[in-house]
């Protein structure tokens, strides 16, 4: 039931809480070849009381959207999943109630190199689950100018 009662007893409709929560935060990532700039971490948390299953054939992140806005507007192109290759058999990510899945993500992955100019960028991540777009809080990335 998506209703709460007021003190007077009149029903008040409240929005349904999405079963999945998506978070995006910056993360320092180092590869064996050194630090990787502009990296972050996506976290998916099961906020429901039931197990959630995400079926995928590329990566659990194939349902992630990364829209990036720069000084002149949206600079991201395409969809985050465009860069992956599929498996034949689907895999399932199963999250128990309260359980979290995290994965590193390149915050500017959808921004072509020739569109990366010095400035402030806002990264809006959202995860599409069960037909619903679940947005994360936007994140800001600073691209410094050439030294």
């Amino acid at each position: 039931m998506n209703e709460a009662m007021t003190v007077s007893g009149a029903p008040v409709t409240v929005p349904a809480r999405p079963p999945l929560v998506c978070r995006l935060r910056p993360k320092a990532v180092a590869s064996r070849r050194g630090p990787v700039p502009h990296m972050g971490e996506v976290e998916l948390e099961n906020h429901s009381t039931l197990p959630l299953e995400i079926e995928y054939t590329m990566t659990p992140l194939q349902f992630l959207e990364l829209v990036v806005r720069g000084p002149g507007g949206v600079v991201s192109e395409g969809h985050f999943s465009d860069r992956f290759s599929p498996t034949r058999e689907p895999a399932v990510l199963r999250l128990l109630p309260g359980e979290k899945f995290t994965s590193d993500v390149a915050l500017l992955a959808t921004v072509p190199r020739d569109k990366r100019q010095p400035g402030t960028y806002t990264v809006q991540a959202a995860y599409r689950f069960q037909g619903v777009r679940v947005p994360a809080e936007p994140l800001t990335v600073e691209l410094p100018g050439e030294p």
Partner: protein
Amino acid sequence: MAHDGPRTSGTTAEGAGPDSIFRWETLREVGPLTLPYQQPVSGKVFAVELVAGATVEVFRPDDGLFYFCHGLTFGGKHAPGGPVSPFSGRNVRTILDNHYRRVEPESAAAPGDILVWRGLDEDTPHSAILTGPAVRAGEKHLDFSTLVQTKNGRLPEAEMTLERLTGDEFLYGDSLTVFRREETGRVLS
């Protein structure tokens, strides 16, 4: 540091010629499949025997044009009748087990070798053809400036540096392995 030796084109017709790892005459349709990109790619799954005897499943698009990374890397791009791409994971591992050997250390890699990335579980989320290996003196790993021919998902095929593939643009990470084609696979044909 220098790029090592002559660069191959990365787009040779290996997949169609006598050096193919596939026995194209065994190609048989399994069923329809639509790849779940935001702009879905419709096509069919086929099974095809490798020269070494094992069978793998591949994707052939209805448009006769689309292929993804493993189609480029293993020569399915040049299949008779239109490009095919082996699926990531089990199918790619079957190809590697039957026709390739690991190159260690990475610094011994040569143009024409391939790079295969590891993912969750047994997945092989990406592969590419080495075109311009570069190694710093005293290092055992390929340098960021190494060049590869790559087809990143449904994005256009291009030559790019390892830095772009392992860094903040394509994020395949550095869990990669270099493989070299086994000559024995050709003898069996």
